[in-house]
């Protein structure tokens, strides 16, 4: 077994930081792309934006797939972000764990609701 203590200790062995950093960039980039695509469809629509125009944007299958991916992106992006906030400001382990569980329940619940709305359209 290789030495993993003292000066030889591999501090970042889990690659935790890189994974979270990269996933927040990728998911953030996806959400930014979604924002621009949605905005373009709203701005380039003709006439006043009523129900038909608005619902029409989300009824296209490619838009549904994209929106679904964005919902999944939000789920992970927000989880990393909120966990960072709890880790920085909440030290007592019991309260932090409770808040982390609340975050997961809140996020998964919201994602489920959003997906339901999206796919019955």
């Amino acid at each position, binding site marked *: 077994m290789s030495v993993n203590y003292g000066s030889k200790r591999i501090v970042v062995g889990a690659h935790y930081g890189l994974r979270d950093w990269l996933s927040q960039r990728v998911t953030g980039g996806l959400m930014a792309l979604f924002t621009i695509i949605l905005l373009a469809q709203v701005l380039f629509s003709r006439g006043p934006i009523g129900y038909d125009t608005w619902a029409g944007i989300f009824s296209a299958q490619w838009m549904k797939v994209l929106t679904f991916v964005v919902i999944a992106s939000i789920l992970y992006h*927000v989880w990393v972000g909120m966990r960072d906030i709890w880790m920085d400001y909440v030290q007592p382990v019991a309260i932090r764990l409770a808040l982390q569980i609340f975050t997961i329940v809140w996020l998964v619940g919201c994602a489920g609701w959003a997906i339901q709305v999206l796919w019955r359209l």
Partner: protein
Amino acid sequence: MTELANSPRPPRRQFRNINAFTDLTTYRLPPAGIVSILHRVSGALMFLLLPFIIWMFDTSVSSEISFARFKAVFNVGVGFAPGWFFKLVALALIWAYLHHFIAGLRHLWMDVSHAAVTKEFGKSSAIGTLVISIALTLVLGAKLFGLY
């Protein structure tokens, strides 16, 4: 070793539990620091208002009837809550989204470009983030409240 162990050290001052009202207000943040903390604030705000965001998505997109209800909530209000209150919440979300969006792009740009990782760019881009996000919030807020 024994000398070290025997000589008592003076107790160190401990700094714990900063007071949010007396300590935090004395912190002087540079523009990049303001953008950074607002990035967190805006993110946390959107997290907490996530059910409201999905409620807006649900009612606006599900049917003609729910779309009318969606509009009525903002124009007339619901129950004891007046319409302007919901517009105000929506405006807070607009600001949060714009700030988070632009500050996020700033992050991405600093990850991609080595030239952007300087003290000067950090300051100028932070000021740019604040100016653009607040200006766009004002423009969209004026539209939301029917000023034009």
